[in-house]
């Protein structure tokens, strides 16, 4: 259709003094960028296909490769940025909705980076995590109004079902189908080893992974894929997915080509058929419907599993959260607008929802004001990037955090944001067998364990600095935070003092 107005975004820079034409790059590129020209006796590249996933760079034995952003520039225009123009070209060419994946990459303020953590000096001592116990165990679930004792002084009150975590970090929902079987295996094994949980996402649960059930959160989403009694009983908890930070108000669409034999079995849908998750649950048009779903799930599992309700952080998140707390849910998971996804309409991903930091502050405060904070635990996700983000989230009032993108990075993801193509060169967001096998779960599991171990050490260091030796004493301890470069309004919402105050 006429001229292609899209110039390649990246350039493959190959140092021919180093290139030994081993052709590893060629074999490793699912986008078929590299090839060998027998006449030139040289490697050549079709840059228009390059997504900058860095696979070839990582595997080149002679470090002969680098991928750089092209410096070819359209005429500068502060209003019509190059990307904006290219998107118009793309849509004029395709007539379609722009698709992209992973988290919102746009330049919005990151409030984690505008909060600073406290430390002890003189008037009280910091605690050395290498000498003293530094506890990070958390329980998620409803807390009783009171604890009654019998004559003997033993506990009479029975607790609601709880999730017990050795550290306040879980792997967030990523469905089998959107990510590969090996990625799922790694998440499940690492969660088990580290005493935390991973989340099946809406793709059902492969029977092979039932063995990790104690460390599995099974999700029930609008598509109800792979949901059946054994599935519900298989996990430690059940998560109802109402929304996702990357695409609030939008359903999901897993293209048929990703529905191979195993995925189709697990999701209980025909092979090759598109898997459509409706935007709303068609049995939930209001909060009272949610209550019914929560209790039918509890009934189905004899009240042995805590129920999580996951929502996207949207404008009136506090009110919604309060409604959920009153609907019988044990845990609320809030997903910020930077949360990742396997595929979302670009406009939605980049323009809908609010930052998790503000949502969390508002929800925690609102639930306390309504005196129902103990009825529900709060889990937050949507771009938790480091141990300090975790510490800040907990100080703001979260019980635990979900990490998704960070986990994928740990196993090789380079955020090329092309999951939707299904050609993930790192074997993560793909179902193509030759690509899936690139992710050896043994290696991936170890890397995930390392990441959690490292973050937990850092969390403990920061706690020790604050003179806190158990994570529960940090929860909602907003005095431990100070804002930096924040407006009165932002401070008011976060309910923290400004640095220097």
């Amino acid at each position, binding site marked *: 259709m006429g001229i292609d107005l899209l110039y390649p975004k990246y350039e493959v820079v190959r140092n021919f*003094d*180093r290139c*030994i034409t*081993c*052709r*590893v790059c060629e*074999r*490793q590129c699912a986008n078929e960028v590299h090839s060998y020209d027998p006449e030139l006796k040289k490697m050549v590249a079709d840059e228009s296909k390059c997504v900058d996933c860095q696979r070839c760079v990582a*595997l080149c*034995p*002679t470090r002969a490769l680098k991928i750089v952003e092209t410096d070819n520039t359209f005429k500068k225009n502060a209003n019509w940025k190059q990307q904006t123009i290219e998107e118009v070209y793309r849509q004029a060419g395709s007539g379609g909705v722009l698709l992209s994946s992973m988290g919102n990459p746009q330049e919005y303020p990151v409030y984690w980076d505008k909060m600073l953590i406290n430390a002890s000096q003189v008037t009280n001592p910091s605690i050395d995590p290498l000498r003293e116990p530094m506890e990070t165990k958390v329980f998620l679930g409803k807390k009783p109004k009171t604890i009654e004792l019998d004559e003997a002084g033993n506990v009479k009150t029975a607790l609601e079902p709880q999730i017990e975590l050795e550290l306040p970090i879980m792997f967030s929902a990523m469905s089998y189908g959107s990510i590969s079987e090996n990625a799922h295996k790694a998440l499940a094994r690492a969660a088990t080893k580290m005493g935390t949980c991973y989340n099946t996402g809406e793709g059902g649960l492969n029977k092979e992974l039932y063995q990790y059930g104690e460390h599995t959160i099974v999700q029930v989403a609008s598509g109800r894929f792979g949901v059946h009694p054994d599935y519900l009983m298989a996990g430690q908890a059940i998560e109802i997915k109402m929304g996702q930070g990357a695409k609030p108000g939008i359903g999901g669409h897993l293209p048929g080509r990703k529905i191979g034999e195993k995925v189709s079995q697990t999701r209980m849908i025909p092979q090759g058929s598109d898997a459509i998750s409706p935007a709303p649950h068609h049995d939930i048009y209001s909060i009272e419907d949610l209550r019914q779903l929560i209790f039918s799930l509890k009934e189905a599992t004899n009240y042995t599993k805590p129920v999580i309700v996951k929502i996207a952080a949207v404008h009136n998140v506090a009110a919604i959260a309060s409604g959920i707390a009153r609907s019988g849910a044990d845990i609320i998971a809030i997903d910020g607008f930077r949360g990742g996804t396997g595929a979302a309409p670009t406009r939605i991903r980049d323009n809908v929802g609010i930052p998790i930091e503000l949502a969390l502050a508002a929800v925690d405060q609102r639930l306390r004001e309504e005196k129902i904070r103990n009825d529900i635990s709060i889990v937050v996700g949507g771009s938790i990037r480091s141990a300090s983000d975790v510490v800040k989230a907990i100080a703001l009032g979260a019980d635990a955090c979900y990490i998704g993108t960070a986990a994928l990075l740990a196993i090789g993801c380079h955020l090329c944001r092309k999951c939707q193509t299904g050609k993930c060169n790192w074997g993560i967001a793909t179902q193509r*067998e*030759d690509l899936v*096998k*690139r992710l*050896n779960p*043994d*290696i991936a599991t170890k890397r995930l364990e390392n990441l959690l171990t490292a973050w937990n050490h850092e969390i403990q260091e920061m706690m020790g600095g604050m003179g806190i030796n158990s994570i529960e004493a940090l929860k909602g301890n907003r005095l431990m935070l100070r804002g930096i470069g924040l407006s009165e309004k932002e401070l008011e919402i976060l309910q923290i003092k400004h640095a220097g105050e």
Partner: protein
Amino acid sequence: MKRIYVNEEWCLGCHLCEYECAFANSGETNIVKAFKRDLKPIPRLHVEDAENGIHFAVSCRQCEVPYCVLGCITGALSRDEQGVIHIDDNKCIGCRTCMLMCPYGALTINHNKTVTKCELCTDNNQEPACVQNCPNNAIVFEERE
């Protein structure tokens, strides 16, 4: 003894092991230099690429009953105490009988027309180059029964 084993399901067929092996035994300290020589160094293992995405590397199994050694007409091949099978290329006259004896096709002819094979480059007890550089643990160096 510790041997090289192949985890076929994890082999990507990237062939890195071949290049790292050839480099490790090239005597060069720089991989680029090794492969810019007129005679490119020859790997001592071989990656087979089959249909339907099956790949695997084949190198000397260091057999308990090494047909190559039994068949060697010059005594160039020998098995040391550890069980590693070595070749003395001063003695090898390139008759290739060992190649005909080896059930795995693990021996190859070198540029100088003598036979070369994997002798487990484990000097200063590091893992063999192919194992070290396999991006997906498809080649491992371990005890197995």
